[in-house]
């Protein structure tokens, strides 16, 4: 069995590596995106963001005149430590606790915090209550730091879904799968070889791109490289497994492309590749939880930006493993060798 898996694994690797245009695309696209976007946005958010510390999920704008300020995005936080960490890293310009007592926190080194504080004090002048100021310090998280996991995750998603889903559909359409079926190779062996090949290739590419951008842009890394690698590995397995479901029966490359895009785009928009989902509605955030990419990016950012440990990201790893188990089971059950 292992000999057969290795034979398919090796030939698929050769096919991928010798397809220079595809290899170059997989390597250059994420690097170009990280560099391009990090220089284009230079670490600055356009809008002002204020955290509101409260237990309720909806903000009552009548509770304080500042909450009616235009051009400021208000985001609810229940956990003080989490919110303070955001202020410390310039991801929140100010944190407000309506109280009583009314308190606020700003980062002394954040220019946008200075202006938001000014707006808060202006709005507070019409109220009899004085807000207590608390000041914290910390270096900013640049856009490149925040975005790097997103770009790598997106590249991983495209590579896993198209690299397995699309390729198997092509094999089925051109009769290569039919030829393999006439050998002692089993569906399990074939699928295992495809998954293993893609896993090795995507982890090598992601490691290479991460190392290169990390060194050149000096991106933040608060946690353990091992934990980050594990998040990538478990995440890639879930994405490859998702690709297998699409490829299990489809015989048309056009349909496969459409289905894969149907999966890709919602994941790309709702999993936090380009922007944070903080402040979005509950429904959106709940939907996002069914996407493997959401768990991958949340965990990777927690490791990179917050120094999350293996225990901290364990719930996401469990969720990804469960999703992989579901995808692989469904994919294996509905897998078909032949075209018709």
């Amino acid at each position: 069995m292992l000999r057969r898996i290795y034979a398919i694994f090796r030939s698929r690797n050769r096919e991928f590596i010798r397809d220079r245009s595809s290899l170059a695309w997989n390597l250059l696209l994420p690097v170009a995106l990280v560099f391009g976007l990090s220089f284009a946005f230079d670490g600055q958010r356009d809008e002002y963001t204020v955290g509101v510390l409260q237990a309720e999920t909806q903000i009552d704008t009548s509770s304080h005149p500042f909450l009616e300020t235009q051009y400021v995005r208000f985001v609810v936080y229940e956990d003080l430590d989490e919110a303070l960490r955001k202020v410390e890293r310039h991801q929140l310009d100010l944190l407000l606790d309506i109280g009583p007592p009314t308190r606020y926190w700003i980062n002394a080194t954040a220019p946008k915090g200075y202006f938001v504080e000014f707006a808060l004090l202006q709005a507070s002048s019409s109220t009899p209550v004085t807000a207590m100021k608390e000041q914290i310090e910390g270096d900013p998280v640049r856009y490149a730091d925040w975005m790097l996991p997103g770009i790598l995750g997106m590249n991983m998603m495209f590579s896993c879904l198209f690299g397995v889903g699309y390729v198997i559909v092509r094999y089925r359409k051109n009769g290569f799968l039919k030829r393999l079926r006439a050998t002692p190779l089993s569906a399990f062996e074939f699928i295992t070889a495809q998954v293993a090949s893609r896993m090795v290739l995507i982890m090598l590419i992601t490691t290479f791109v991460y190392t290169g951008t990390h060194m050149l842009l000096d991106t933040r890394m608060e946690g353990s490289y091992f934990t980050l690698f594990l998040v990538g590995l478990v995440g890639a397995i879930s994405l490859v497994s998702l690709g297998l479901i699409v490829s299990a029966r489809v015989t048309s490359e056009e349909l496969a492309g459409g289905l894969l895009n149907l999966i890709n785009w919602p994941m790309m928009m709702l999993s936090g590749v380009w922007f944070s989902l903080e402040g979005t509605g509950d429904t959106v955030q709940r939907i996002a939880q069914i996407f493997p990419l959401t768990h991958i990016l949340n965990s990777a950012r927690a490791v990179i930006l917050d120094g999350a440990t293996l225990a901290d990201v364990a719930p996401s790893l469990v969720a990804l493993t469960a999703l992989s188990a579901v995808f692989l089971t469904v994919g294996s059950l509905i897998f078909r060798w032949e075209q018709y």
Partner: protein
Amino acid sequence: MAIALEARDLVKEYPGVTAVDGLSFSVPEGICFGLLGPNGAGKTTTVEIIEGVTRPTSGEVYYYGEIAGAKFREEAGIQFQNTALQDYLTVRETIEMFRSLYDRQANINDIIEQCSLADLLDRDNRKLSGGQRQRLLLAVALVNRPRLIFLDEPTTGLDPQARRNFWDLIKSIRAGGATIVLTTHYMDEAQILCDEIAIMDAGKIVTQGAPADLLYERYGDKLINLAHGEIRRPNLEDLFIDLTGHSLRI
């Protein structure tokens, strides 16, 4: 002589079409068996059911007296009519990859020599001519020292030299003791290579036997008058047309 392969009451139905309609035949060990028929007769479907790549609606396939299963897959060699190979792999890598899928492995140098592929070993699959590609597909079908080989229209699209070269290859394989099941449109090919043939039409076998016996049964000592006063003996093509008609198949 042992029966290498037996098909019993094979039926394959697609919506609105019965592609194979209660087909039964057996192939003794060591012969070259030809399955002939016009387009759409059900030859390829029949062969694919036997090969295990298409599931029949009903019927069974026996390999040396047992339901065709793991042993059959290990010991059968198959050359499909249209097989795509992996891109970016060389001839040698393709042969080695398929060879690794079997426990029963042929000597790779013997296959290369037999199929005249020595000069093409480092060539990308995509850069092979039609004849070279057919020789590679035959080599792939031989990687497991098959006791039974299926060749589905192996010479379609080849020039006369390549066809004759391929015939020699098939003869050498048969001389090695393997049983061959050949489907073809070419009656001259069947007459030269096959010990026994079955002519199919509309999913059924209309006649079966040794080519010479079938011709004698049908025509006896009759001769055919041609234009300009020439005469000749009836051949398999005459028999084929007599049995399957002149109407164009679509």
